Structures are given as structure tokens and as C-alpha cells.
């Protein structure tokens, strides 16, 4: 008698087995994986592109002007060439090189700003939830006040007053506006966890405050923290792109937003230079869709009731 395990599984059985494994591990969520894959592909473009493509082509005038991607023709009747596979812009820059340099810059601003914002949020949220009293009041009112101020408007004032800023500086500025929602979220969670049995147990057994914070509470906060982090990455990138499209932000470093700004200003829409604004728009779209999918996936990880719906 042969064991059923030795039999090659049929396709349907394999699919079912896969489903069961997914059911066991909520982190193997298809949305999460797709979202992470999309973001990873952007990172890979930036990392691998550096080795295979000549990055000196990001400089103005290094290439012919307004060449279309391969297989297309521009209004002057020029067709795309292999030296510039996705075309060139109105300043004579190679679009592929612009993307290899620009796309990671955009992601970098989003990640750095939210990392800083999250750290501030974790610190303030825990302090407010744990210490209570005056500290809590101050932090709560501060977060409530700051959460209604749209970051874009303040940063517009800042950057138009100071002129050129670096990428890191822009990320730092944006970080000043993405700590509020993590703070509120963590404060609320800490307040409710403080009442829970296991935290009180730890307190009774004499565990230190830092032990309770980081060993007892933090692990339970992880899905929320991730979700909040992804949301603030989205906000940061939206704000950064907004500033860049208004012509602010770093002036000499290629970013996706700045490329769009230059394309609009040069009338790329009327001249039908769709690759100039379209390719950065597409990449930003991929970044945002990737972030959304990760967030939806995380929602399903932390809220099992949503899982059966998808």
C-alpha cells in the first residue's frame, strides 16, 4: 500500500494545500506580497540601474532633446534610439538615468521622514499613555493641534523662504508633520493595554517600566505600528511630490516630482511628450499602489474579520 504522500499531488490539491498554509500564516498575504514586490522593484531599478546604466546622462544637455521611447515617434518625426530606450526630456537628459537616480530619492524621502516621525510618535505615545497627567494633556493637545495643519502649506512657506533644500532636509521637515497620528494611535493602544491582565501582572511582579513597554506591549503593537508607518510613508511622499510639483524641494537633484514639474512647465502635455511626465507619473503610481496594497494586507493580518472577504 502506498502512502498518499508519495502520490504526486494534483493541481487542485496543491492549491488547497497552499491555501491552508496561508491560513496558518497571515503574513503570507497576497496583497502584502504584491505590495512589497512593487516597492522592491522600484528599489531594484535604483540599485541595479546604477551598475548597468551611465548615470552621467542625468546632466542637462548630455543627450539629444525630446527623443521618444523606442518604437515611438515624436512630433518632429524622430524615432526612439537604443541609446535612450525610454526617451529624453526637454533639457537633454536621459529619462532612464533620471529614473534610476530619481525614484530611489523619492522613496528615500518617504522612508526617512516616516522613520523619524514614527520614532517621535512611539516616544510621545508611550510617554502620554504611561505617564498620564500633565504630560498626557500636553502631548494630546499638541497632537490634536498639529494633526489639522496640512504639512504642505507650512512647508511651502518654509521652502520658498529658504530656497534650495537637500533631500535629507526635506525629509526632516516632513517628519515634523507625520508624528501626530502614530502618537495618537499608540497613546490610545497603551491606555487600553495598561488595563489588560498581562500588563498588570507584569507590574505586580515588579517588572521595570522599560520591560513592560518594550517586551510586553511593543510586540502587540507591531501590526498597528507597521500600518501606521506605511500610512505615514504615503503621506510623506505625497507631501514631497506636492512640494516638488510646486517647484520647491531640491532644485538640482532629480526626483520624480521635479521631473513632472519641469515637464508641465515646458508644455509637455500640449507637445505630446507623454514619456517626459508619464514615466515619473507611472512610477509614482506604482509606489502608491504598492504602499496601499501593503496597508490593505496589514489590515487583513491584524483584523482576521477582513480576511474572508478578499
Amino acid at each position, binding site marked *: 500500500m502506498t502512502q498518499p504522500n508519495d502520490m504526486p499531488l494534483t493541481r487542485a490539491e496543491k492549491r488547497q494545500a497552499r491555501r491552508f498554509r496561508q491560513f496558518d500564516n497571515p503574513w503570507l498575504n497576497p496583497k502584502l506580497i504584491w505590495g512589497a514586490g512593487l516597492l522592491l522593484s522600484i528599489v531594484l531599478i535604483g540599485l541595479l540601474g546604477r551598475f548597468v546604466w551611465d548615470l552621467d546622462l542625468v546632466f542637462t544637455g548630455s543627450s539629444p532633446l525630446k527623443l521618444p521611447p523606442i518604437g515611438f515617434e515624436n512630433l518632429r518625426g524622430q524615432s526612439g534610439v537604443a541609446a535612450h530606450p525610454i526617451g529624453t526630456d526637454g533639457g537633454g537628459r536621459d529619462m532612464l538615468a533620471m529614473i534610476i537616480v530619481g525614484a530611489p530619492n523619492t522613496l528615500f524621502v518617504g522612508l526617512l521622514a516616516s522613520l523619524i516621525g514614527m520614532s517621535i510618535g512611539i516616544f510621545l505615545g508611550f510617554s502620554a499613555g504611561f505617564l498620564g497627567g500633565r504630560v498626557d494633556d500636553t502631548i494630546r493637545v499638541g497632537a490634536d493641534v498639529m494633526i489639522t*495643519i496640512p504639512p504642505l502649506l507650512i512647508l511651502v512657506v518654509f521652502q520658498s523662504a529658504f530656497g534650495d533644500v537637500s533631500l535629507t532636509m526635506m525629509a526632516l521637515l516632513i517628519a515634523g508633520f507625520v508624528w501626530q497620528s502614530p502618537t495618537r494611535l499608540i497613546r490610545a493602544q497603551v491606555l487600553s493595554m495598561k488595563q489588560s491582565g498581562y500588563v498588570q501582572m507584569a507590574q505586580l511582579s515588579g517588572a521595570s517600566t522599560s520591560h513592560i513597554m518594550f517586551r510586553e506591549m511593543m510586540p502587540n503593537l507591531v501590526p498597528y505600528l507597521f500600518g501606521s508607518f506605511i500610512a505615514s510613508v504615503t503621506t510623506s511622499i505625497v507631501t514631497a511630490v506636492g512640494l516638488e510639483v510646486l517647484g520647491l524641494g531640491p532644485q538640482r537633484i532629480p526626483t520624480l516630482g521635479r521631473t513632472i514639474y519641469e515637464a508641465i512647465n515646458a508644455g509637455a*502635455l500640449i507637445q505630446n511628450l507623454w514619456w517626459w511626465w508619464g514615466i515619473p507619473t507611472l512610477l*509614482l503610481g506604482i509606489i502608491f499602489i504598492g504602499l496601499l496594497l501593503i496597508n490593505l494586507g496589514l489590515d487583513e493580518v491584524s483584523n482576521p474579520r477582513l480576511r474572508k472577504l478578499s
Partner: protein
Amino acid sequence: MGRIPRSYLINRLVTFVLTILIAATIIWIIPRLSPVDPAEIALGRMAAGAGSVANSEEILAQLRANMGIDQPLILQYFKYISGALVFDFGLSTAAFPTPVSTLILNALPWTMGLMILSLLITFFIGNLLGALMVWDRSPKLVKVAIPAAMVFTSIPPILSGLLLMWIFSAQLQWFPLTGAYSIFVEPGWTWDFVKSVLHHGFLPALSIVVVTFGFWALGMRGLMIGVQGEDYVKLAEAKGLRPRYILYRYMIRNAILPQITAFALKIGLLIAGQVLVERIFAYNGMGKLLYDAILNQDFPVIQGVSYVIILITALSVFLVDLLYPFIDPRIRHEAT
């Protein structure tokens, strides 16, 4: 204000006033930290117009006196704050001597009109679609198509605006490329003008609607899942009420309430997104005003526009907070 406890009211009022005050203060401090001297910018503009400027030292001093920046900082600050309270931001430096408030008053109706219209449309479509996603009787197509369409809702409206502009204005030429109304039409309450405004406003509004309805749909989906299992829904089904009636009167009506607070938190981002849409469509609103001011380094206008938009945001949050207990009687504000 029968149902709202006074402590809650005071709490919200303090938050509102603090928001305005802090925002106004930040906006005031930032340009003062900058090495750029507004008087020198104004002088530079004169020099660019005239070729050369004689007695530049005297003119600089006079400009500084006009702008009030020769006074002590603390005096300047209080003057600015008391001015901001009555929407007096001084004179525009680029469109000298038009007061900033006049420029803002001209732009504000366009922004508000576009915003309210697109908000109403998105709120309606988004919540309906979100509810249909959960409802077990909605057609299968709805359950497959909506989640797929919702992928696009993470995209900021500026990107959808660019795409729509290219397809419908540049390629198909169904809609005008820029502006809020045709330059051949005299502004006024005539049919031609209204038609032109609607024609020009359609694409900017659509680009906002396309990418924001999913936010409401997603929120509504989560809320509907919660409502679905409630006893009163089961009771309504047991009573044999028509499913459609149950959906509208029992489920959506109860689920929609928290969406209104979600709106309050989202409005800041919505306005910021719309400002950018106005900039790419060169729509006559606050976005275009802001962009032109950035190009001209016109600080009074930049400050004024930022301040007014933050004020609108804070005011809507404040109003939603106050109205909420009236909309949802289940909420009781505890005196904390």
C-alpha cells in the same frame, strides 16, 4: 447647546484656537529665520524693471519701513497676529499695491466651489460603493470591480489630473486644457458663463473624485462589516423587510456616521491635494494664487494663502466635532 457638555466645548474651542495660533506663528517665524530680505527682493524687482536704481540705500530703508520690518520683532509679531485675525496680510509685493485679502477673496470661491462639489460626489459614490462591497445581495461584478478600481485610490489627485488632462484635453480635446472659464465669456450670472465654468471645472473635479472615492469606500467597507452582524439587522431580516430597505435604512444609516469624523481628519490632505490640482490645471483658485506667489517670491500672499487654507481645515474639523453629537445620538460626550 443642550447636549454638548461645556467642558467638551471648551476643549474643542481651545484646540481650534491653538491650531490657528500655532499655524499663524509658524508661518510668521519661518521667513524671519531665512537670510532672504524681502526689501531686497522688492528692490531687485525695481532694478529689473528700470535697469538701475539710484539711492538704493534710501529706498531699502523706505521699503523696510513700509513693510514694517524695521520695527522690533515682538511688535511685528503682534501686529501680524492681530492683522491675521481680520484677514489683513498687508499688500502683495508682486501685484503691488493690491491687498493680499483681495487676491484671496477672488480666488476663494473657485476653490470652495470645486472642493464642495467634488467632496459631495465622492462622499456619495464612495460610501455607496463601500456598502455594496459588503452587502451580500450586490451583483458579483460589483464585488470584483470595485476592489480592482480601488487600487487607484492611493494615487494623489495630481497624478490622476495629469493623466485625465492628457487624455481628455490634449488628445481628445473634449475639455479645455487650463483655466476656470473661457476668456471669450464675460464673467457674470449668464448661461454661457455657467456653462463655461462647468466645462472647465469638470476635469479638475473628476481627477479628485477618481482618486478619493476609494478612501470612503474602504472606510465604509470596514464599518459595514461591523454593522452586518448586529442584532437589529437580523431582526429586520426576520421581520421580512425588503433587503434594499434594510441596506439603506438599517445598515448604511448606522455605518455612515463614523465616516463623518473620518472626513474631519482627511480634509487637510484633501485641500492640499486640491491646491496641486488647481496648479496643474491653472484653475483660478488658491492653488494657482499660491503657485504664482511662489514664483514671484511674494511672501505676504504665500503666508495669506497658507493661513486661510489652514483656517478652513481647522474650522471644518471644529464644526464636525461640534455637530457630531447631533448627527449620532449614540455619542455622549463625557465630561473629562
